[in-house]
């Protein structure tokens, strides 16, 4: 039996602290993808490069990008450096980033996407099914509830090349919807 509190303990104090969270709109969407410059942001997680390269090939079957520029951030569990975000935003029109298949890498993929969206660049972060709830909470906590991720099957880090191709097809299906929004 736990201790029964007395009359003097009749107040309850919320220990959580105030959250100041805005809801910033996502970047404006283009009407078409042809002719846009695509940035690939590889977070260096296991198989991120394979997923991104296979996805690019799959996307290029239907979209004629003006350029495809490849960027790598050194740490999958940290936000991309502000100068890398600025460089991507200055030289590209849309972004595809991966892979959010772990707690910290998912969080950071979403945070990178939010940073790019704030700079006007529609960004599609690829996460896995295990991290949909975390993505929802993260985008709410940092104030961009309208950010839509690309969701592919979990896992990613230990899959075969054939399984990579299956997930790339999932990316190719969803990415245009994220980049174009309602347009």
């Amino acid at each position, binding site marked *: 039996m736990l201790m029964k509190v007395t009359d003097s303990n009749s107040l*309850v104090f919320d220990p959580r602290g105030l959250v100041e969270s805005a809801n910033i709109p996502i970047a404006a969407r283009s009407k078409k993808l042809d002719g846009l410059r695509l940035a690939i942001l590889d977070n260096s997680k296991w198989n991120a490069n394979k997923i991104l390269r296979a996805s690019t090939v799959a996307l290029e079957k239907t979209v004629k990008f003006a350029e495809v520029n490849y960027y790598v951030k050194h740490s999958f569990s*940290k936000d991309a450096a502000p100068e890398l975000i600025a460089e991507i935003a200055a030289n590209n029109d849309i972004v595809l980033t991966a892979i959010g298949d772990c707690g910290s890498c998912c969080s950071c993929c979403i945070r990178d996407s939010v940073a790019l969206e704030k700079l006007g660049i529609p960004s599609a972060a690829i996460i896995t099914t295990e991290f949909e709830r975390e993505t929802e909470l993260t985008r709410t906590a940092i104030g961009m509830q309208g950010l839509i991720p690309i969701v592919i099957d979990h896992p990613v880090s230990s899959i075969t090349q054939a399984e990579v191709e299956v997930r790339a097809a999932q990316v190719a299906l969803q990415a245009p919807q994220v980049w174009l929004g309602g347009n």
Partner: protein
Amino acid sequence: MATQTLEQVGTSVAIETVPTGTDLIELYYDRGWSDGLPVVPPTQEKIDTVVAALGGDPQFIECKVAPRWGALTREILAINMVMAGCRPEYAPIVRAAIMAVTDRAFNLNGVQATTHVASPLIIVNGPLAAEVGMNGGANAFGSGNRANATIGRAVRLIMLNVGGGWPPDFDKSTLGHPGKYTYCVAENEADSPFAPYHVEHGYRPEDSTVFAIAAEAPHSVTDHQCNDPEGILDTMCSAMSTIASNSAVLGGHCTVVLGLEHAKDIAKAGWTRSDIRHYLWMNSGNAFKAISRDHRYGKVYNRNLPKWLKRDPDSRIPIVPSADNIHLFIMGGHAGRFSAFIPGWGHMNTPVLRAIDPASAPTDDGCTDGVCAL
């Protein structure tokens, strides 16, 4: 578990009156404001005492805590400290620990979210540790000491309640480890044959500091035979050289804890802290073919390791990139030939050493405002 991770609090502190006789411990459980153990229900008097120990001004925001980014006012800090069972005199240590883990270099957002087991390990140096009765001696990492237990618990409660790091939503750890309840110790400066950790890093012995690193649980290192530095440290190297830790494949920082018997034998041979750390760095690690599994699952480069490391099959991959990334502490009781290796989370986390009294400043370079990114 908490369902209100992102619920906003309308005022600085929401205070609710409940009917006389309400079991507040159960109520705090029901709200999801516990780490799983019973909390001490805060009273206004207890909160005020802790706020006074923090310097007053209850609405002063010390920091925001990721990934929920809740504002940690002194009042909220005090509420969580009371809930953890802290005495008011622990307040400067808890505050310094929270400021260390919320330092940008620490990457608390990642530490909270990771699927890895890591949790912040807090190690306190300097006279304040002894003044509040912290334990760096026998059973230092174990139970039985209020200061160790409740300072560490307060840090964790703040990470949960203010930071929102509740499993399974924001804390995605596959397994977690017991240090996610509390993980706070002191170095055994009184019995150590070496200068304390914070003195090695430029502080004065009379300064008090907190060191914070994202860490696995301690891995015991047993050696009842060797009585010389090389023998004892080779045993430590064996523990460090597993391919199964994040340190092995992601580098970063790690912590080595030498027990007193081991430390005294090493010191008797005239070795310094620097000698120990460099020996460990030179003689631990793995061949690249081991961590690449000999390319059995495809050609491996491992982009998470430094570019300057050779990737030939027999190339040695050190467990962390330099001897300075090995953080050495002396702890434990007088009896027992046991030490410990504590792998880190990887290069994603930079440990932080911070003065508890902001007026204390290290005497070396690489530190600003009493904070050293290591």
